[in-house]
Each structure stands twice: as C-alpha cells, then as structure tokens.
C-alpha cells in the first residue's frame, strides 16, 4: 500500500511524456489521450522506460481526459481511461525487474475552463466531469488519483471532492505556482495548503511552471505550512522557444543535483514534469536513493490556524484579527428587509464596506424564519466571494445550510459554530472532517454556560477531544468562551477574560469572542464595548467578532496593535489617524443646491442638500422639483454629447444618495413609498459581460423603477419565470456578441409564448435597430438613457397613477 510508504521513504514519480510522445511521432494538435488506444505499444514503452529508470509511481496518459476538455467523437472517454491504466500496468510488468511494489496513478488535469462566477463553468459541472474520470480510473484498477497542474483553488476543490466521494483511492494534488508563490487565479501558498489539507488529501505539492531551482522559495513556504507529505515535480528548467517550439534545457545531472537539495529540505515524493525524461529520473534516483529514509528528516510543520478564500489566507497569530459581524439580520430592520426582498446587492455592500473598514474575515449569517436558508446561504457565499477576497465565517444553526455553503465555498472557511453538546458535535464535526474548516467552539453544553473560567475551559477541552476522533486537529478549533452581559451578570466580564487566558494556557488554541454583547442594556455602549475589546485582546483574544464600521472599536484595535508593536512603526495607526485632530466637522456647503449637486455628481453635497431641503419640503416635492429636473438636464446633456458616461453615472450615484435620505424621511413620516413599476434586467445566457446592464440598472433606479436584476449568463427560463411570477411588463436584455444574441432571440421567443403584453427592450455592443427587429425585440436602446425614456413611455401611465395615489395620502 502506497500510504504505508508515503512520508516514510522517499518515493519517485515519473517525468514528462510530451517530449517523448513527440519523439515517437505525435503531431501538434493531436489529442495525446487518444494514443492510449491508437498507439498502445508506444505508450507502454514510455511507461516502461520510467519504471526501468526506477519510478515508483507512474501517471496514466489522461491529463486532458475529462468530458469538458476531451472532445473526440471517435473514442469513448471510458475506453481511453481504461486503456491508459492498462498501459501503465503493462509498462510496469515489462519495466520492473527487481520485484519492487509500484503504483499506477490516474492523472487528472484541469478542465481548461474558468469556474463561475468569473467564468461560465459551474462548480457542479466541474465536479461531475472529474467524478466521471475518477470512477473510470478506479474501475480500471488505478492505485491512486493524482490531480495535477491545477491553478485554481475552486477547480481543485471540485476535483478532490469528486475523487474522494466517488472512489476509495488515495488522492494526491499538486498545483502550479508562479515564481512569486501565487496561483494564476491569485491564491497564495498558505491558502492552497489550508484548502487541500482541509479536504484531507493524502499528499500535496507543486508541479510544472518552473524548474527545480526556481521552486525553492515556494517549496519552503509549502513545507512551513503543510503537515501532510509534500510532492515536488518541476520542469526541466524554464521554457525556451526556438523556431516556434518550446523546449527545456536543464540536463539530467543538473536536475538531479538540485532535486537532491529539494529532498533534503523535506519533499516526500519527487519526479519531473515538462521536459524531464527517464534520464532525469534515473539521475535523480541515483543521487538520492542512499538516503530514502526520510522519516527522521521530516520536520514537523508548526500548527497554524488558517482560514482562506480563493486568493488570500488569514493566518491566526499573536496579532489579533477582525471578524466583521454586520452580515447578520439580528436587530437590523433594513437587513431583514433586504433578505426578504432578496436584495443581494445590499448584503454584498455590507461585505465590501466592512472590508474597506479593515475587517480580515466576514461573518455571514442569513437566518430568518420562513427563509430557505440553505439556498440563500449558498447564493450569498458565492456572490460575496466574487466581490471580496476575504475569507468568510459561515454562521448558521441550520446544518443543511452549513453543508451547502461549505461545499461550494472557495477555500477553507471558518464555521460558526459548534458547542459542547453531543448533538451539536455529532452534526458539525463530520462536515469539518469532510470539507475542512476552522470551527468556533462555544463553551456551553447540555448543562448551559458554566459560570466559572474552569468550567468553560473544561468544555473547550471536551470539544477539542471529541474533534480528535474525527481527525480534526486542534489548530482547526478556535474557542469562544462567551461574552456575558455585565448589566445582568456583574462578574461576567471578569469570568470571560479569565476563561480566555485559561483556554489559551491549557490548550494553546486560538480564541474568538463576540464583543458587543457585553454592554447590552447599558447607556453609551460604544465606550464599554471598545474598552472590553482592548481588555480581551490584552488577555490574548485571537479574533474579535466586531463591527468594523464602529470608529470606537477600530480606535481600540489600531491603538492596541500600535501599543503592542504589531503595527511596525505605528504605520497603520498613522495612516488611519494622521491629521485627525485638525479635522473640523464637515462644513456643509449651503450654497450648492440639490439640483446642482446632482448635476455635478457630488455625492456628499447631494446628501447634505437633500437633508437640508427636508426642513421645508415634502420628499415627493423634492423629487419632482429638484431631482427629476436635475436628472433630466444631465440625461439631455448626455444625448447631446456634452455630458459623458462617467459624468452621467456620477450624477446617478449622487441622486441615489439623495434618494436614500428622502426614503428614510418617508419611512419616518409613515407615508407609503410610491408604488414602483417593476422591470426585469438580465444579461442573456452565455454572456458574461454585464457592465452595460449595470449602467442601465442604475439609471432606471434613479427614475424610480424597481429593477429586478437577474445578473449575467441567465437562462431564458429563469427570465420567463420571473416575469410571470412578478407580473412584469417590461424586460431589458443585454448581449455583447453575435454568439450570444442567439440566446437573446431565444429568450424573446419564450417570453412571447408565455406572457402577452410584456415588452422587451434590448441593447449591447453588436446590436442595432435592424438586428433588434430581426430577433423580435420591441425596442432597441442605443444607450442607457434610451432605455429610461422607453421605460417611461411604456410604464408611464402606471407610474402617473402611482404618484397621484401617493399624493392623495
């Protein structure tokens, strides 16, 4: 069994096959995988050469054999994979002369597609493609699955899950890094290691991209974080080009010399990638086989608590981290409303503003009664990950929602939470075991919350011990000793702080704490919160769950980091507060009118002007007398060519801010907001460029329309369904290219069939009036303003009624 040897003795992979295939006559553009069936003898011979050179593990010729990449009408994928496995085994039979145990590794490479939301391949489709290959490989008798040359954490997660859930084979995964230790999709080394170890791969590492010499910095970082055995498979140097051909020129001896150093650093399995040959492997083995026993050499990696997103890892350490608490409906009317109305943008903006304010991790809680929490959690996690690179803390009591989110999460998430109740541990730990994650352990159990520090530490111990049964290491547990309100529990703060110290001392684990609960029921809460926050950090708190938009909390944070020398030369403190004392309260420019603020696109001024106007006018009067005329002026200027798109949008953003002020006033006064006409907007199926649609959206919202934004790459069926469900009378569709106008046409066709009286307006780079007529649209908007005018024309009657209704109030 390979797992019995892995990490104890140095294991040898094979090297590259591309060059060898070319030597045997494979033409450029030919699919190498078909050679398993068409050139069996040649394939077997290549494998034989590697076994003869001494390789223990030889990869099947199946790098591109997945349904998404392999489009060959002549051969079935299953036959290719089966033949590939047999070819390696045949090669072993012919090439192993010393009776040693060798292994056939099913090679799985990337799909060559970018996953959603940045590309158009869904996580589930990627998973299915990998699953198919993995199953064929196991059926054919592969001994392990080797996923390699991955440059996207999300894709490798799909591949590892597919391999682990559908086969019982060991799973290895290696990624391709650049010289700076980054994946092409931006991921850094700790984020990759955290993700793969969380998914419980048996070995991880690096292949391709560089020669052995260039790999040292990345390798050193991998070895620093990885606790599982590390694989290294470099190219024979950096690629060079001559006469259109790519070649590599590090010779076997030089390759072996550097590889020896790599094994001395602590690599557990080594081989080669592009440009390496049986000669390279033979030389490598000759140099290193006398010291194959690596058990003594292997340094134990330190225990790092790491959470990650697609691009960024947050490593917990002495310096405290900030977990933003604002994506949570508890006690927030607007947030609840946003959840109910499915206003995803509102929630995403909460995430972005916290990131801007300095959060390192975002807590995500979307639990409300009568809400499909698994579906919503999944959606929000996906969307958040497309606008922020911060790791997320999935916060839910719904185990289904937790699993749904953990499965599609790109990275290693934080999970909030488990506690000392057996039931909770039975439900949550299997998920951590399967998907990986850092879980918050609350120190409460069946008997409630102990009122002594020792009692809480005992529960922490119980949680850590139970986690061990699942193979979840201590570093993946952070303990929350719970904040108790001091107005009802006089000794609450002292107990919490003491418990913080105690769990850290006893178990050496990281800690989190929801801070603001401390002041519940007291006046002027920020004072108590921020001081307690400082005290908790002083007691060793690893991460506070706080509101990063609260200046008091951030002042505590920056001061603490400066005082403790976590903030070198007080740089961040100075950046935040330089010039602070000199800052006078913002002077409101009384001279500028709301109309002129909007025309000039001045957001702050628009805010103040709107607020000032409210003293003498009703919100609706302000809208009709100041805002609409201003927007019209700008809109006309745009049409004439004296105002340009960025200016038009600056005005739109300023108007939006003024609207928000007026809306609040309307709500306060108890007046019903005027009924808004709904418009559905979507970028059609297959199209991923949505900036045009977003521009139209902002303008339509300015003019008082309720825009239901279905996003980009939207199936015709989804658009039709929404139109029917919401009884919408106007749909706006956008498409960028001729290839996607086809889906536009299809959408219009389906709309006509299912809903009479619904108008369709279209826009996008390749469209013109003629084209729009051809696909049966009602209106072609050559720019964003045209769509506003058309919407007004179509929905005017209704809108007029809406305004007059409100006026009657």
């Amino acid at each position, binding site marked *: 069994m390979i797992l019995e040897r892995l990490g104890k003795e140095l294991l040898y992979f094979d090297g590259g096959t591309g060059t060898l295939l070319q030597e045997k006559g494979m*033409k*450029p*553009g030919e699919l190498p995988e078909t050679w398993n069936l068409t050139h069996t003898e040649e394939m077997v011979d290549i494998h034989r050469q590697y076994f003869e050179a001494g390789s223990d593990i030889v990869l099947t010729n199946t790098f591109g054999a997945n349904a998404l990449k392999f489009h060959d009408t002549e051969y079935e994928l299953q036959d290719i994979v089966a033949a590939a496995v047999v070819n390696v085994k045949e090669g072993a039979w012919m090439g192993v002369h010393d009776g040693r145990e060798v292994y056939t590794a099913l090679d799985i490479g*990337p799909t*060559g*597609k*970018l996953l959603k*939301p*940045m*590309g*158009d391949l869904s996580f589930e489709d990627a998973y299915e493609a990998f699953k198919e290959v993995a199953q064929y490989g196991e059926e054919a008798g592969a001994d392990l699955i080797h996923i390699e*040359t991955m*440059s*996207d954490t999300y894709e490798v997660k799909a591949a590892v899950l597919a391999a682990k859930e559908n086969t019982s084979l060991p799973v290895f995964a290696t990624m*391709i890094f650049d010289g700076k230790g980054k994946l*092409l*999709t*931006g991921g850094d080394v700790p984020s990759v290691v955290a993700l793969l170890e969380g998914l419980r791969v048996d070995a991880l590492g690096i292949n*391709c991209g560089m020669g052995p010499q260039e790999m040292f910095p990345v390798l050193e970082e991998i070895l620093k974080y990885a606790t599982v055995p590390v694989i290294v498979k470099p190219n024979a140097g950096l690629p060079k*080009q001559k*006469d*259109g051909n*790519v070649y590599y020129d590090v010779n076997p001896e030089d390759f072996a010399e550097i590889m020896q150093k790599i094994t001395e650093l602590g690599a557990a399995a080594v081989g080669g990638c592009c440009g390496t040959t049986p000669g390279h492997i033979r030389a490598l083995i000759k140099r290193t086989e006398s010291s194959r026993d690596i058990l003594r050499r292997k340094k134990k990696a330190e225990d790092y608590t790491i959470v990650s997103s697609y691009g960024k890892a947050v490593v917990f350490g002495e310096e405290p981290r900030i977990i933003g608490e604002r994506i949570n409906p508890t006690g927030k009317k607007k947030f609840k409303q946003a959840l109910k109305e499915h206003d995803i*943008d509102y929630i*995403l*903006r909460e995430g*972005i*503003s916290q990131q801007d304010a300095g959060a390192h991790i975002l807590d995500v809680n979307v639990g409300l009664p009568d809400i499909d929490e698994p579906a919503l959690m999944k959606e929000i996690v996906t969307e958040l990950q*497309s*606008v*922020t*690179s911060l790791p997320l803390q999935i916060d839910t009591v719904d185990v289904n929602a937790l699993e749904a989110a953990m499965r599609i999460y790109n990275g290693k998430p934080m999970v909030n939470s488990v506690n000392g109740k057996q039931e909770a541990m039975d439900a949550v730990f299997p998920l951590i075991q399967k998907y990986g994650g850092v879980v918050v352990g609350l120190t409460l159990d069946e008997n409630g919350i102990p009122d002594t520090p020792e009692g809480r530490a005992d529960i922490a111990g119980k949680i850590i011990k139970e986690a061990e049964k699942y193979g979840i290491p201590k570093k993946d547990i952070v303990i929350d000793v719970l904040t108790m309100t001091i107005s009802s529990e006089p000794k609450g703060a002292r107990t919490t702080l003491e418990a913080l110290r105690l769990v850290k001392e006893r178990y050496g684990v990281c800690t989190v704490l929801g801070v603001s609960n401390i002041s519940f029921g007291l006046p002027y809460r920020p004072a108590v919160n921020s001081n307690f926050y400082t005290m908790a950090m002083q007691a060793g708190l690893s991460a506070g769950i706080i509101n990063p938009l609260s200046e008091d909390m951030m002042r505590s944070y920056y001061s603490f980091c400066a005082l403790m020398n976590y903030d070198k030369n007080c740089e961040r403190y100075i950046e935040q507060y330089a010039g602070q004392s000199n800052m006078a309260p913002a002077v409101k420019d009384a001279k500028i009118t709301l109309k002129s603020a909007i025309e*000039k*696109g001045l957001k702050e001024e628009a805010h103040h002007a709107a607020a000032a106007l409210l003293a003498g006018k009703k919100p609706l009067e302000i809208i009709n007398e100041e805002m609409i005329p201003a927007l019209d002026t700008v809109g006309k200027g745009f049409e004439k*060519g004296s105002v*340009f*798109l*960025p*200016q038009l*949008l*600056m005005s*739109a*953003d300023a108007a939006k801010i003024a609207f928000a002020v007026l809306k609040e006033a309307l709500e306060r006064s108890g007046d019903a907001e005027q009924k808004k006409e709904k418009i559905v907007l979507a970028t059609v199926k*297959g*199209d*991923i*460029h*949505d*900036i045009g649609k*977003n*521009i139209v959206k*902002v303008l339509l919202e300015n003019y008082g329309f309720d825009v239901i934004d279905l996003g980009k790459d939207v199936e015709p069926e989804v658009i039709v369904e929404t139109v029917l469900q919401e009884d919408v009378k106007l749909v706006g569709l956008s498409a*960028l*290219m*001729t*290839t*996607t106008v086809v889906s536009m046409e299809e959408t219009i066709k389906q709309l006509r069939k299912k809903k009479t009286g619904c108008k369709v307006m279209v826009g996008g780079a390749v469209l013109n009036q003629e084209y729009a007529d051809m696909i049966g649209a009602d209106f072609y908007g050559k720019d964003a303003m045209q769509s506003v005018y058309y919407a007004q024309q179509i929905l005017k009657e209704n809108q007029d009624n809406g305004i007059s209704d409100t006026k009657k109030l």
Partner: protein
Amino acid sequence: MDSREKEAGRYLGYGKHAIDEKTWSLVKNCFQELDRTVKSRIVYRIFELETPDEGRVKIGGLNITSRNLAKNMKGCEKGVILGATLGIEADMLMRRYSLTDMSKAVVLQACGAAMLEEFLDSWQKEYAEEAKKEGYYLRPRFSPGYGDFDISCQESILRMLDSAKKIGLTMTDGYMLTPTKSVTAVIGMSREHVPCHKKGCEECAKTDCIYRR
C-alpha cells in the same frame, strides 16, 4: 495626460472632447488601483504562415477563412499567435465597484482595456526589435472578432497556446474570453517591410462608431 489615460478617455466615449476634471482624476485613480492589483500576463508562439488565396490563412496547422486577415497577412511567412490577460483580479474590481460606485466601474473598464492595449503595444515593440534581427517585420495585431475573422477561432488559438495553463486564459462556451480583460491576436511576420499604418479602428467598417479613433 499620458497615452493610456487618453486611450481610456476614448473608450469612455470622449472622442476628441477634453475629459472633465472629475473624470480625469477618477481615471488616474483607477490606473493606480489597477497597477496595484493586477498583473498582465502574455503567452505567444511563432508558427509558419501562408496565405494560399485571398480568403484564407494557414498558420501552424490552423486554417482560417477570413478575407480581412488574409489581406493583413499577405506576404507573411511566419506569424505570432498570442494571448494576454489582466487576470481575474481586474474582473473582481469591476464587479465590486458595480455595486458601490458605478461611474468608477465604467472608468475601470476603460482603463483596464487601455492598460491591456498598452501592455501589448510595449510587448510588440520589444518583440519587433527581436524579430528584426532575424530579418522579419511585424504587422499590426489582428484579433478574432475583427472584421470577418471568426470569433470561433478562439478555441483553437487558446489550445495552440495552452493558455489556460500558461496564463489562466480560458473562454466560455460562447467563445468569450475569461477573464474578461483578455486579448488573443495574430501578428504577421514578413521579410519585406510594408509600411502598414492601418490598425484597429481604421480597419473597421463601422464608421459611425463613437469610440472610433
């Protein structure tokens, strides 16, 4: 104002008009943010090229039917195929500002395009020097989607470059490049120096385009 700022202004539809103060400072700010966040990457290969007739180009085993391209490549015996991208970080920035600041999202879009063009221009200038040493002159870049050069050629081009692995450049089922701020192109290499100033806009038949140079 430097050349890429001017280009960004053109993409924003300013044409020959002066860019207003506020937009200009936004343009500067967006370039700063892009310079900080994104990394331009390129992959290219040189292939044998022939133009058997006025409507076809053969390059490294790829047969392209396109009169425009054939005209552009006339007299070339080699060709560069290239792919370049700003990566997904640029897309993320645009997505993010689409939620919080639409004018910035639009300006970022224009700046991203200008940045990629500038990157390719400077690469091409450098490569032209290299090619000259071997006696070749470069033609202007020509991309799938220009004129009658069919966009579906993206698939073969990406495969020939192994661009997914090399620079993370992929495409959707509808032949759109992902990340979105990406370019593929063919550059002809000829022994003869043909002064050839036509590129991009001037070559395009859409004469009423507001983005025309």
